């Protein structure tokens, strides 16, 4: 009887694994489809823009032949479906095309790669810092709910969220460099100069993580199962660690992959005040300058990052929450 039970559960598990694999393939297909739609839409919309934008300041003085040559060089003389096909063909080879205006005729991959590296490096470190500070901050506030550490923390969080970030970013840059010898500008080869940008990047997320962690923990603390755990005789500390903290962390988990991946977008403001050569504001810049190939490339990258982030978040959720099953509806017991 016993052996049969284990055999049964084994075969069941195998079946479940197959379902999970199927689900992942399905989700991946859906992700590719969404990407295709996004890119195609953006590509077509960009083609609706007036061609004068591509030709520089003295459009009026150019002869028809010169204009035609310039458009032909960008591949704009062909019909839109052909352009789209060419774009996808190059994409399949890993070629995102060349920049038109931002840095004329330079490979987009070459422009973006070092920028992404810098933004992602600073972003990842800032995120690590904000998790390491923000989560314990929220946990501490939940444990001391209503007492002074909680009130102090709430004040800190409200200030960070309510005050325009420019105020404290500039404050940090001006006053933290005095006396500490920390440099005011970013220098890729001097890690000491990374400190202030990282702190500035981390501050808003510290407030965010702290706020949500506190809120989720307070939610969990009022649950019946926490009361039962205490009635069992589990010490307060153990209840907090094994039950409350663990369960409150679950809803936080889902957003972590997205947040991490999105660090490659950089931060417009922090990067500009420390003159970090990162991705911050690049998309806005190339849109304004009508550098279509750059816009397409960036939209493609950011959209992929968004979709992959959500997907990874979902998978992480399955790992930490047994109630969620990737196998979907109809199979709930």
């Amino acid at each position: 009887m016993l052996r049969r039970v284990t055999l049964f559960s084994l075969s069941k598990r195998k079946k479940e694994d197959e379902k999970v694999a199927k689900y992942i393939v399905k989700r991946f297909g859906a992700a590719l489809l969404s990407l295709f739609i996004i890119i195609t839409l953006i590509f077509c919309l960009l083609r609706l823009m007036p061609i004068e934008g591509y030709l520089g300041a003295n459009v009026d003085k150019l002869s028809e032949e010169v204009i035609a040559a310039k458009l032909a060089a960008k591949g704009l003389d062909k019909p839109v479906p052909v352009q789209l096909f060419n774009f996808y063909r190059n994409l399949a080879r890993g070629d995102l095309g060349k920049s038109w205006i931002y840095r004329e005729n330079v490979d987009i991959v070459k422009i973006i790669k070092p920028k992404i590296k810098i933004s992602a490096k600073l972003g990842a470190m800032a995120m690590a810092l904000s998790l390491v500070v923000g989560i314990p901050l929220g946990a501490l506030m939940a444990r001391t709910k209503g007492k002074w550490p909680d009130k102090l923390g709430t004040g800190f969080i409200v200030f960070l969220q309510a005050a325009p970030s420019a105020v404290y970013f500039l404050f940090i840059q001006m006053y933290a460099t005095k006396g500490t010898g920390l440099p005011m500008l970013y220098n890729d080869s001097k890690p000491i100069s990374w400190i202030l940008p990282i702190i500035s990047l981390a501050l808003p997320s510290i407030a965010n993580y702290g706020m949500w962690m506190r809120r989720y923990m307070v939610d969990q603390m009022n649950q019946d199962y926490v009361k039962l755990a205490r009635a069992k005789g589990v010490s307060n500390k153990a209840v907090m660690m094994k039950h409350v903290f663990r369960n409150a962390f679950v809803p936080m988990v889902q957003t972590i992959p997205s947040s991490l991946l999105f660090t490659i977008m950089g931060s417009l403001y922090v990067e500009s005040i420390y003159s970090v050569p990162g991705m911050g504001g690049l998309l806005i810049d190339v849109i304004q300058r009508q550098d279509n190939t750059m816009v397409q490339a960036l939209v493609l990258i950011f959209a992929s990052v968004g979709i992959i982030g959500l997907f990874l978040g979902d998978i992480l959720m399955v790992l930490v929450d047994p109630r969620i099953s990737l196998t979907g509806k109809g199979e709930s017991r």
Partner: protein
Amino acid sequence: MLNNGDIILSVKDLHVKFSLRGKVLNAIRGISLDLHKGESLAIVGESGSGKSVFTKNFIGLLDKNGWVDSGEIWYYGMDPDHPVDLAKYKTEEQWQTIRGKEVAMVMQDPMTSLNPLKTIGWQIEEALKLHQGLKGEAASKKAVEILQDVGIPEAERRAKQYPHEFSGGMRQRVVIAIAMACNPQILICDEPTTALDVTIQAQILQLIRNLKEKYGLTTIYITHDLGVVANVADRIAVMYAGDIVEVGTCEEVFYDPRHPYTWALLSSLPQLGIKGNDLYAIKGTPPNLFNVIRGDAFAPRNPRALKIDFEHRPPYFDVSPTHKARTWLLDPRAPKVDPPEIIRHIRNIHVGGVEE
């Protein structure tokens, strides 16, 4: 049956207060009660009468804004010669010696009283580790044993599952299994069947009763379901407005009730109603416990109230060695007041039944 030597818990003039929105609420107003080893006591009363609050004092789980204002709670379970006064327990460390180990609890809603992210086995083992010093393999083996004990089939496989894979009745069995894993002396069941459907209710009550017999537990049921009470209790304590107004054996309270509130409570039972008559309902609302209550708390809703009921609080009068009630009607000087028709009816049934 009720000699003083086997008292396990003795409450003396307990007052519990809460601070709510800057005002003080008198939740428990001077309860005295003895609990005997191995007995099954039911505490009945309407919502807000303080049933749960009263028992939470035995396990140190009063909400943060509540406190024991005065009174004593002597617990004899650890060493009958050196009882401890739970009313004086303040710190977590002190309560850790009581919670689970001595007094365990089964709560109302099994759907929410288990941690959704931990396996059933884990949650039972947590209690085993704390109270029986078991670890690893031994703990998980014992957990499976306890699950079998509370009537969960395929316990070995079920122990690896999560709460969402269990039905409500099964979850309540798991909650009971957790309480049993603590190996307590007193088991408080706070409306253990309210959230379950009727067919499951009887099973769960039967389970608790079997475990009580098997392990010699002392059980306290909190309920407003008198049907449950009749099933499980040896003794009944009737609570009203933070006070026990009548206490006696099941038989005494059901067939010979003395307090007007108990009369009213029984009269409003649909099962006891007389066919063709409207179902009795107690008029008015329970008193506001923010106010100081003068006299008998039930007097304003009692059509048979005496003048003294509004002025002086009645003491307990003994009806029999096991039966007492807090009502001036039992004072020798009180005029003779007849209980309502339904109560007289029940009495007759009982007397008739005995004669047959």
